[in-house]
């Protein structure tokens, strides 16, 4: 139970970063931290009692394996997280060129 609670604390750290930080790069990093907490949670769910690594060894066949499906889901989700972060970084660099600052309080051109 403690490990799931730690994942939740990591998610709250990321959420605090997104809400309170003013620098755009710090917002992007906090968004990544939030996503990583959900990957950790998803990978921890697949644990079965007394399980070993889910690789079939031809010499030693019958064992209880850890559930491999959440591991595949986490792999896919990591790739998606990479694409999202790369896109966010590209937009942040272009915003720096146009506005001249990383401070989010200066970037309020659109109102109403």
């Amino acid at each position: 139970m403690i490990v799931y609670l730690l994942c939740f604390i990591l998610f709250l750290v990321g959420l605090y970063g997104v809400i309170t930080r003013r620098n755009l790069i710090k917002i992007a990093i906090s968004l990544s931290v939030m996503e990583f907490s959900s990957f950790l949670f998803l990978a921890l769910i697949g644990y079965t009692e007394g399980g070993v690594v889910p690789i079939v060894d031809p010499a030693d066949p019958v064992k209880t394996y850890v559930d491999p499906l959440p591991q595949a889901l986490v792999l896919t989700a990591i790739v998606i997280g990479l694409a999202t972060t790369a896109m966010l970084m590209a937009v942040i660099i272009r915003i720096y060129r146009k506005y001249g600052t990383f401070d989010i309080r200066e970037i309020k051109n659109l109102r109403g």
Partner: protein
Amino acid sequence: MKGMTFIVKKTTQLIAGIIFLYGIYIIIHGHLTPGGGFAGGVVLAGSFILLILAYGSDFLNLVKEETGSTLYENLAIFIFLFLALTGLVAGVHVFFANWLPHGTPGHLISAGFLPLYNIFVGIEVAASILTIFLALIIFKEEILK
């Protein structure tokens, strides 16, 4: 962009080839050991990025490099999609089916289509991470001019 000091250049010269081979090893053994297409592709891209960072490059070379890596990326993912579509026409008539002979588990050439998928995904991921890096570097160079 300028390169780095002499020590970094010499170390990179020794190590970059080994990293490249390690990336290829992870990709090819994707159906036997952990790793596979994505992780191996990232390591492969890492060796190229290490070379560019250590030796520096001027602007025209970077632009030519980026058109090359974009072409490789699209070509690799298109061939991947084409291989997935061949399941529709060749015998089994199901999309994404694994219709090559399966072989014995534990050998390098086994599990039908999986090594081919791993190789093309590896090329695609390596090219795409290189493209992302080059696009950001080119943008920075344009600002500095």
